[in-house]
């Protein structure tokens, strides 16, 4: 008797587990005026803070700051990297990008009814200039003046490569913020902005925003936005799959079966390639990566398709161009000599390069020209799963194809972080900053300016030293004409390809999950007017483009 009961129990659990897997398919009848739920996987919202400047305030963490406060202009991280004037009617830079002239848009009102003016623009930028704690872009503004209807901002350095950091500063009303004593601890309980939505209610479980009927940008299809946070990716994936959440930016393993297939007609996953690949930083100060032949050989035996397929679990396209520029967004920058030139695996070619450079093999083990066996260690922090899988694959490929002894080490993130800054490694996988020009990619990987910092560097971790590259990058950032920039960039790319300062491995796209059940007009691979990330400043642009589904 006892035995049978136990079996029934076990059988019941198994049956439940099986039925549970099927899940409930959301209904697919478009609902007019449906709310949109934007979800994040970052854990509970704690206290209300609608401060648009402080990084981890509720408004910033959930991203609803972007639908309340708007910037002067939006720079597209994908597509053509174009600038869309927003609260400005036009933004004009001088030739070397040190002076910005802004014409504020007329007819824009704050959500308390007051008019948006040039004084508000001056005030917002002055606030940043006078509060170093909030100046995360280190803007180096020297002068902010009103010139008739316009506002003229002067900078101590060229802002060509940092345009988005200047233009994306959220505008706040002077009549509210002028009386606030400390903008860093201000919680701003009744946020006044120019944005399309206003804060309706805040609780630690969800934040509700309602559309304005007097928004300067026109009518809004979505009347209500909910911002919700889940405690981890699993819970968020469940919510996206069953329709509790509509829009998110999250890394979902096996996104096809876990999300898209739950409603193939409407669920969309779009990994938008931005100008920021994942690369292997190589230590140029010691063996084996101080040798160009070895860097070249490793560069052409890495299986980038396997990296995308296995390590990134197909969350985004493969990195193809030899220039390291993720495509399609990077195509406009690729130098003519590298157009259409893609990475391809060539084990024979790699072995020839090594042989020519004096490497030999002793029973399959690679021996360098000094007669020592070649070995190195690839390092990333433990728990960073896509990176750990990524370097394990590379280690296997290099060991099998070249005979070098490639090891994998996964220290804790803080140790790794300190080692990477001090240059205490052979090779590490790391991201590059995603800018709206290719400058960040190339500067982060080969610019000598980082090395001026001394023992602790912020980028160029492998201490690649090439005065010509440093000079060209400086030219690109500060030049006064497009021709100069183009020429510089072409030569930078040829150094990057020929000298292999780092090894580009995969793309690091901005992910976005959404559905078209109730609304269409989303950004997508075919219409790259913005990334599909719901916490970017471009969200008002997306929300004004959405239309009810038919």
């Amino acid at each position: 008797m006892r035995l049978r009961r136990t079996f029934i129990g076990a059988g019941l659990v198994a049956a439940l587990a099986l039925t549970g897997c099927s899940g409930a398919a959301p209904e697919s009848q478009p609902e007019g005026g449906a709310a949109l739920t934007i979800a994040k996987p970052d854990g509970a919202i704690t206290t209300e803070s609608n401060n648009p400047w402080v990084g981890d305030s509720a408004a910033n963490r959930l991203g609803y700051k972007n639908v309340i406060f708007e910037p002067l202009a939006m720079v597209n991280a994908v597509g053509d990297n174009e600038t869309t004037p927003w609260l400005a009617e036009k933004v004009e830079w001088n030739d070397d990008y040190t002076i910005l002239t802004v014409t504020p848009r007329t007819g824009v009102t704050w959500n308390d009814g007051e008019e948006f003016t040039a004084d508000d623009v001056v005030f917002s930028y002055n606030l940043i200039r006078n509060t170093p704690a909030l100046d995360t872009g280190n803007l180096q503004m020297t002068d902010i003046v009103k010139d008739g209807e316009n506002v003229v901002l002067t900078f101590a350095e060229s802002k060509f490569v940092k345009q988005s950091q200047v233009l994306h500063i959220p505008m706040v009303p002077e009549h509210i913020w002028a009386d606030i004593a400390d903008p860093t601890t201000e919680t701003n309980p009744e946020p006044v902005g120019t944005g399309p939505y206003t804060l309706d209610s805040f609780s630690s479980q969800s934040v509700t925003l309602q559309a304005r009927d007097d928004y300067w940008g026109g009518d809004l299809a979505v009347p209500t936005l909910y911002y919700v946070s889940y405690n981890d990716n699993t819970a968020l994936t469940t919510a996206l799959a069953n329709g509790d959440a509509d829009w998110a930016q999250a890394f979902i393993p096996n996104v096809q079966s876990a999300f898209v297939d739950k409603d193939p007609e409407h669920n969309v996953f779009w990994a938008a390639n931005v100008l920021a690949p994942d690369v292997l930083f190589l230590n140029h100060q010691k063996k084996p990566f101080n040798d160009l032949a070895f860097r070249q050989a490793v560069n052409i035996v890495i299986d980038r398709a396997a990296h995308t397929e296995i390590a990134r679990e197909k969350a985004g396209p493969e990195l193809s161009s030899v220039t390291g520029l993720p495509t399609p967004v990077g195509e406009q920058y690729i130098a003519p000599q590298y157009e259409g030139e893609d990475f391809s695996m060539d084990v024979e070619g790699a072995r020839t390069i090594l042989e020519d450079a004096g490497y030999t093999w002793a029973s399959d083990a690679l021996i360098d020209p000094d007669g020592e066996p070649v070995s190195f260690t690839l390092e990333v922090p433990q728990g960073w799963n896509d990176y750990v899988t990524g370097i394990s694959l590379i280690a296997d490929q290099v060991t099998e194809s070249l005979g070098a002894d490639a090891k994998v080490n996964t220290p804790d993130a803080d140790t790794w972080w300190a080692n990477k800054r001090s240059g205490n490694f052979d090779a590490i996988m790391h991201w590059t900053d995603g800018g709206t020009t290719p400058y960040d990619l190339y500067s982060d990987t080969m610019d000598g300016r980082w090395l001026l910092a001394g023992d602790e560097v912020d980028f160029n971790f492998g201490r690649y030293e090439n005065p010509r590259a440093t000079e060209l990058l400086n030219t690109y950032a500060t030049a006064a004409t497009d021709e100069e920039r183009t020429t510089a960039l072409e030569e930078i790319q040829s150094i990057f390809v020929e000298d292999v300062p780092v090894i580009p491995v995969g793309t690091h796209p901005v992910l976005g999950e959404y559905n078209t059940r109730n609304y269409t007009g989303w950004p997508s691979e075919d219409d790259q007017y913005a990334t599909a990330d719901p916490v970017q400043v471009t969200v008002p642009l997306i929300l004004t483009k959405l239309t009810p589904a038919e």
Partner: protein
Amino acid sequence: MKIPVRFIASRSAFYLFTAFAAITINFFLPRMMAGDPVTAYMQRNAGQISVEAERSLRILFGLDKDSSVWEQYTSYWQLLFSGDLGRSFSNGLAPVGEVISSALPWTLGLVGIATIISFFLGTATGAIIGWRRGSKADVIVPISTFFSTVPYFWLGLIAIAVFSSTLGWFPASHAYDKGSSPAFTADFIGQVIAHGALPAITIVVASLGGWILGMRNMMLTVLDEDYITVAQAKGMPNRRVLWNYAARNAMLPQLSSFALSIGFIVGGTIVMEMVFSYPGIGKLLLDATNAKDYPLMQGVFLIITMAVLCANILADVAYAILDPRTRQTEA
């Protein structure tokens, strides 16, 4: 009854010292970890924030000034006595007290109620099973033990898949519906109950086994005592023998485990919070640790330490009342 002055004094001294030591460790422990709040922030926003932000973050967090650990330690005590726990780096510089009070009530409410239900249900079931040893009721022991050994996250995911995704009886996550705000209305209370049901039931199911097993085993020992035999021989009703004679004595060790588990309620149950996206102290502490958010970590540690100490005091008092031998340190 004579008041055991020396006993109370020595226990008080012990607790004061423990509190002091705990608070000191709370201060030093977070600072012994590698890394600091700024690099942790940069790691979380990998690639999304440029390295130029580091300088402004240091100023924002107040980490740009060099102050010795000793200075920080003394000002920590000063702040503590003035009731100020500092500002949380990872919550937009919100006061730590407010951050904790946004999570603590949910942990206390849900885990507290679940623990009390589990304790009473488990103890009562254990008593009955022990009383009817060898009967069919014994089958409950392996079943309940099975549920407490199954990994909790798996139990939670199954519960969500079945009762939420498939049957749609309960919401899968959060403490109440999106769009509603805490209020004393029937509607809101209903939401809280609906959202809390699955997490509470799974906690009860997962923790029941321990209480049942402990109580049943104690019952078996107690039932062999002479006074049980005497009570039954006198013809006393079984109900009375079971609850007033056997269970009452068998419950003593259960009570002390209960006092201890009250202390741990405050620590929250992080796996439950993760699976059900339920607000609570456990996830708060994990996030604070990952963000190297010293003020918040200290605040949470302080609450947990105090809760465990208070629970210990309660256990001490309860034992001193129930068992005279523990009071006899005077002799």
